[in-house]
């Protein structure tokens, strides 16, 4: 934070070192630079310190120090977020949880585990896999993202269609509150008394404190899994197939759509077996009992063929299944092969509005003279239009941001939401009024006051409350949608 004097910075550094030790604090400008963005490079903000605690006590001591010094602080997991949620918007401390990665306890009989927040999502499933269990929420970044980060964002993933999002799998949290007190919310037992503080904490984007231990449910691996690829020559037909499948009373474990731009990028990346010439493909997974799974697969196949699929095939073995999923889950990253940057939107719509909204998305992006790749959770109605652009071309970033805003407006108009899993963060603060009234926002703000009255814990996020201090592009400027009069800051 440019406003800290050198001597104050030195004092603070010594105080931080006294808590975490010398090797657990970073304050060189070059090193801080690495932490200026998360998975969304559109926004940048520099911290004064990045700190690496290894225990709840250290996190609590850091938070108390921040309170004493009036220093803002924000927790960071793997920095794979896509809304700028873990950026130090007002400087101060970034509390990295990357050294708190333990699995504290696994209780197979009660189907739960206690983990630290820095644990990589997929590593939990790896650890309990040999005993036949797994952790269900599977964000596409699960190979890198942390469970603490998942808590902040209430992360979803392809399989949330059947199994729900993060909040449906969290039983309890040990939390360092914004004033430094350590409390448990919920626990290992069901139906904790009082308000559902676990429920409100999950998805609060790091503004209610820092989770330092997490009790999660573990699920038994299903007896059978079937993964079906349905290939379409028109994206419209693929979206109709989605409703057709749901309409037949089938609830697949996952129902994903991937369009041609994206197919070509992931085929370049890993050669996953998606047909390059297809306009769109649906990746449909059924799981559960072996009994009846073939019949379900037939019903899914029939629904796709009726909607106009040119080809429907089932992954013949686990290797092919993994490869198809690798393609799906690597899609965002793979855009790097076709474009130097992309902005991923995360709107949600009622499933039945899919054909209409996809058409509108294409119109909006075409009107802005940009390209878009679509890869998303079709079964949930959770769209991910990825608008491809080159930040080095003058004016392009503004057009991208504006097109994104228009897409989210469309989502809001059809009764949807502006974010299904990535969170509001810095990116979508100004779009909150698209779907929430001043009374709705005021209520959220009051809840925030209850947790975070001083506002030191991850300030400047979620609410369109004041001028942002964050760098957008090369220097601060009004958000393009402000200029368009689509939103205003207050």
């Amino acid at each position, binding site marked *: 934070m440019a406003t800290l004097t050198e001597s104050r910075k030195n004092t603070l550094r010594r105080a931080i070192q006294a808590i975490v030790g010398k090797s657990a604090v970073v304050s060189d400008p070059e090193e801080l630079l690495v932490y200026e963005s998360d998975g969304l490079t559109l926004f940048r903000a520099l911290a004064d310190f990045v700190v690496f605690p290894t225990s709840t006590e250290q996190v609590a001591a850091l938070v108390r120090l921040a309170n004493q010094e009036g220093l803002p602080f924000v927790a960071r997991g793997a920095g794979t977020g896509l809304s700028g949620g873990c950026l130090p918007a007002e400087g101060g401390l970034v509390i990295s949880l990357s050294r708190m990665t333990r699995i504290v306890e696994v209780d197979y009989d009660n189907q739960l585990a206690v983990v630290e927040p820095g644990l990589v999502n997929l590593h939990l499933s790896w650890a309990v896999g040999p005993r036949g269990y797994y952790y269900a929420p599977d964000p596409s970044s699960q190979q890198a993202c942390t469970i603490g980060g998942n808590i902040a964002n209430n992360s979803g993933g392809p399989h*949330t269609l059947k199994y729900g999002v993060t909040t449906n799998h969290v039983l309890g949290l040990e939390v360092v509150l914004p004033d430094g007190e350590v409390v448990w919310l919920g626990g290992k*037992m069901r139906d904790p008394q009082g308000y559902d503080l676990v429920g*409100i904490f999950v998805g609060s984007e790091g503004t209610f404190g820092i989770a330092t231990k997490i009790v999660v449910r573990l699920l038994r691996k299903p007896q059978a899994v079937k993964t079906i690829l349905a290939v379409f020559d028109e994206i419209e037909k693929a979206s109709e197939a989605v409703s057709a499948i749901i309409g037949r009373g089938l609830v697949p474990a996952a129902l994903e759509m991937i369009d041609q731009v994206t197919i070509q990028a992931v085929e370049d990346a890993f050669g996953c077996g998606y047909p390059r010439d297809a306009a769109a493909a649906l990746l449909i997974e059924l799981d559960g009992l072996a009994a*009846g799974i073939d019949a379900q697969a037939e019903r899914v196949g029939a629904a796709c063929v009726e909607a106009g699929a040119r080809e429907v095939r089932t992954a013949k073995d686990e290797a092919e299944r993994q490869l198809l999923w690798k393609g799906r889950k690597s899609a965002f990253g793979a855009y790097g092969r076709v474009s130097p940057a992309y902005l991923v939107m995360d709107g949600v719509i009622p499933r039945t509005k899919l054909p209409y909204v996809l058409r509108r998305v294409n119109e909006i992006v075409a009107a802005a003279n940009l390209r878009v790749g679509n890869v998303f959770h079709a079964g949930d109605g959770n769209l991910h239009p990825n608008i491809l652009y080159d930040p080095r071309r003058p004016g392009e970033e503004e057009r991208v941001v504006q097109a994104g805003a228009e897409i989210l407006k469309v989502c809001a108009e059809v009764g*949807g939401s502006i974010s299904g899993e990535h969170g*509001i963060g810095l990116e979508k603060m100004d779009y909150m009024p698209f779907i929430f009234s001043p009374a709705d926002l005021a209520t959220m703000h009051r809840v925030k006051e209850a947790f975070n009255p001083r506002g030191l814990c991850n300030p400047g996020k979620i609410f369109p409350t004041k001028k942002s201090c964050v760098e957008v592009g090369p220097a601060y400027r009004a958000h393009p949608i402000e200029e368009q009069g689509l939103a205003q800051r207050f």
Partner: protein
Amino acid sequence: MQPALLDKVRGIVGSEYVLTGVELSPYVLEGRTPEAAVFPGSVEEVSHVLALASEAGVAVTPWGGGTKISIGAPPTRLGIVLGLRRLNRLLEHEPGDLTATAQGGITLEALQAALGARGQWFSLDPAFGREATLGGILAANASGPRRHLYGTARDLLIGVAVVSADGAVVRGGGKVVKNVAGYDLPKLYIGSFGTLGVIVEATVKLRPLPDDDRLVLAGFERLKDCGQAVRLVLTSDLIPSAVDLLDGEALRGLGLAAGAGVGGALLLGFDGMREQVKWQCEEAKRVVSEAGPVEHRVLEAYAREETWRLVREVGRRAFADPAAVLQLAVLPTQVTEVVEQAGVVAQRNGLKAAFAAHAAVGVVTAVLADGGDSAQPVIATLREWRELVRAAGGHAVLERAPLAVKEQVAVWEPPGAAFRIMERIKAQLDPKGVLNPGRFVGGI
């Protein structure tokens, strides 16, 4: 309450929807009679009534079907009972979206009937669906046996409209199944017993109606064997929608036990495609056989529905005149042991007790039979049960008990360290403390 205020309320909702005096007898709560019962016919009316009450500082107790009204400490103030039964419309149901939006006062039965006509259902099955309202179910976080597979209100509610204490209409969540925009406000209202706002609309996730639905009942000599059977089921390939456990007393009380030698039973629900349900019933028989059942039945259609209904209503039906109901939560692996010990405690106090559990999630309903003239054995038993649950690291809520007992046994657990956050949330959302005062955890 000032007569002028009452007149204003009549002006808002119409005098036929304002009850006073002797008409209030159904709304007597813990021995106290409210000043009025008001039944608004629209969200706007709810809003106006609340704004008025809030301004005047009159307490408001939201009331759905009244099926869970017994939960809670005696109210510190009782002004207006706000009945929601007129807000009973299904507002939106698009089967292709697998979601529905309904008003808070719709009964579960009416909701299910409307959804069922279009091949879908709302997968929450608490007791007394004929009377229980959607808003009330959410506010009380009521659930039933199928929570095992389908979860509770927090897993199914995706959007909510509440009228806050000052009369503002606040919406949280939305109408789509995935949504992380802003704080997850719907969670806050679930299980808040009307202390933060009045739920006037809810949008929920739906499921397709299953092709087939059966109940497998396996009876065992000892409760311990039931526990073993539960573990066998949980480590098998079976995917039951319900895993309930009843002790011998509950079985007899509900009229479900065939023989006197049955000390407990495991009730498994299986629903889905016909082929799957058939396989599961057969596999369940095989899996459970290792625990040595003395009885095995597969129930369908009416027999199945009736059995589930009785099980859900165990708190009212285990005994002709139950003295108290304690709902407790422990780890699933602790269920049979806690139930056995609790049974011993009751016996020692000279009381009969019955137990029903959602065994795989560790939620147990413990019912105590009436002990005669003195409340003392009931009080002693409940206190010991509480200790037992606490020793297991769990928690318990006194769901139903006479006032004399509630005066001696706390309804809720003493609040923990996080309570100050709850107090602050309450203070933020209901600064004047008009919503259902005194009934909730820690005196909120």
